[in-house]
């Protein structure tokens, strides 16, 4: 028993934290009626709020956080670059562009159609970006996300120009702001479960891909095929989360970095820890956003940007300094 705790404490901590955060997450909100005692006494409004508002919201947080963490991890394994993620390679911005086009051409559509548009653009853009990066053979890993953010900035500039021209600016900026408070498109977030499932099945293949192309080929893996499947997973997760909850910056970048430093790079072993870790992080950010100006709430993407931005800066700083010290050595 003692052995078990000693070997698994890293996992136990985040799981216990996870359940605690889930309960907190469903208990807080602008309506104060949802209390354990109200639920026990079968108060109907309390149950309604819980079932149709609070629980879906918490599930959306868990799925989008776990999804983006996994998407980032897969991108990092494929590119063998710890700075890759959907939001630092133009993937999210391309998903936004696809969503915009679905608005313009088809006006209001069910979430699934919007997701398909966003997915197609996210995949195309990611394939383009990764193949260009591979051609360029950039030595310094840190420059890749910087290039990626410039590329993403370009796409989102076009998106804004087009949105402005077609007078859908307001809708786009409303969606772009990540939030779990919207209810309309929440069902789309359940799509994330499919690529998550696929990524668990492919976990050991992604680890092997992360060891390099020749390594993977030696073990009889179809390198290009696995990379393609990985990018499909990444694009689908990015599209579905963008359409349902909007832009959650930095999650795909910082969560895999933090999680792999605790749990290692063997994706097969660490993928569940990563998902829980990501969910914990976003749950904390969301709870904070809902409590700070209670009974109102601030946008969760604001909180995530703040915390995530600081962590990202630390990683970037370390990356640049690490390179310098290696050069002088």
């Amino acid at each position, binding site marked *: 028993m003692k052995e078990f705790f000693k070997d698994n404490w890293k996992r136990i901590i985040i799981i216990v934290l996870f359940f605690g955060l889930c309960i907190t997450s469903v208990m807080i909100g602008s309506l104060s009626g949802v209390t354990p005692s109200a639920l026990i006494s079968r108060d109907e409004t309390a149950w309604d709020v819980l079932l149709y508002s609070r629980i879906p919201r918490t599930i959306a947080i868990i799925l989008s956080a776990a999804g983006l963490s996994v998407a980032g991890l897969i991108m990092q394994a494929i590119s*063998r670059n710890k700075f890759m993620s959907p939001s630092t390679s133009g993937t999210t911005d391309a998903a936004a562009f696809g969503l915009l086009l679905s608005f313009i051409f088809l006006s209001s559509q069910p979430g699934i159609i919007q997701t398909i548009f966003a997915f197609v653009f996210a995949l195309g853009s990611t394939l383009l970006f990764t193949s260009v990066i591979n051609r360029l053979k950039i030595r310094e890993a840190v420059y890749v996300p910087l290039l990626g953010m410039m590329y993403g900035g370009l796409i989102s500039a076009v998106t804004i120009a087009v949105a402005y021209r077609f007078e859908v600016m307001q809708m786009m900026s409303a969606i772009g702001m990540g939030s779990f408070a919207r209810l309309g498109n929440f069902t789309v977030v359940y799509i994330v479960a499919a690529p998550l499932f696929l990524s668990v099945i492919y976990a050991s293949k992604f680890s092997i891909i992360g060891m390099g192309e*020749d390594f993977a*080929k*030696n*073990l009889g893996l179809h390198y290009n095929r696995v990379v393609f499947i990985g990018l499909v997973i990444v694009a689908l997760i990015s599209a579905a989360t963008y359409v349902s909850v909007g832009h959650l910056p930095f999650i795909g970048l910082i969560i895999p970095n933090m999680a792999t430093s605790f749990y290692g790079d063997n994706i097969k072993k660490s993928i569940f820890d990563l998902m829980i870790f990501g969910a914990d992080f976003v749950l904390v950010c969301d709870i904070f956003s809902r409590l700070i100006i209670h009974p109102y709430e601030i946008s969760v993407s604001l909180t995530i940007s703040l915390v995530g931005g600081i962590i990202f800066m630390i990683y970037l700083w370390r990356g640049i300094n690490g390179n310098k010290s290696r050069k002088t050595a």
Partner: protein
Amino acid sequence: MIEIKNVSQSYGRKEAKKTLSDINLTIRENKITALVGANGAGKSTLLGVLSNITPILSGTVTLGGRDVRKIKTQDVAKKIAFLKQSQQMSIRITVGDLVEFGRFPHCRGRLGQEDKRKVDESLEYMNLPDLRSRYLDELSGGQRQRAFIAMILAQDTPYIFLDEPLNNLDIKYSVEMMKIIQNLVTERNKTIVLVLHDINFAAAYANHIVAMKNGQIVREGCVKDVIKKEVLNTVFDHDFHIAECGGKNVCLYFDQVQN
């Protein structure tokens, strides 16, 4: 049996200088073949070609009489294991995980009883059980090299190609490694091709030596035929001195021994 015929290779465009030109070679079964030659001679490229990892411009590589390119990659991976010259190490996986990867061609990631046994056995063989749960990036160069060899052993293929397996190994472990390689041939009927930089290790342990220069094979044969002053001088563009010691040829290549 692995045989290559008229193989040419180049990394750049077709007009670029060829890294391998018109190579013909038959790998001898159940023997240790050593590839020797100067830096950039094309040894690593040849090993990559032999294991169907590096694409070729022209010629054929056959495995058991069939063109390797026509065999399913998963099946090739059950026949040929190839260890690169230098290993990536920024990745945080444990020694045990790495060796388990070696079973991938057999179990596609889901380890059965047999796979686990093979993993344990390979770790044992390379004297690594104590390091099993250590991360690769926290090992010494030699320990890491042994971990990668253990992975290749776990892959359990009849053909094993090792690019500079003595990299990072101290003298004791180098000799031990060569003994392990010899045992693999005698006890388990493996066929091994390795790139060696220390010509004396090739002289002492190989059954067959292939000397390369500028993408071509300049001489191949048994130890006696290749470990000769005039052959080595042309292969390495360096003055060699061959001494006899205990019935074996030993190469001296330091400047001071010439006079």
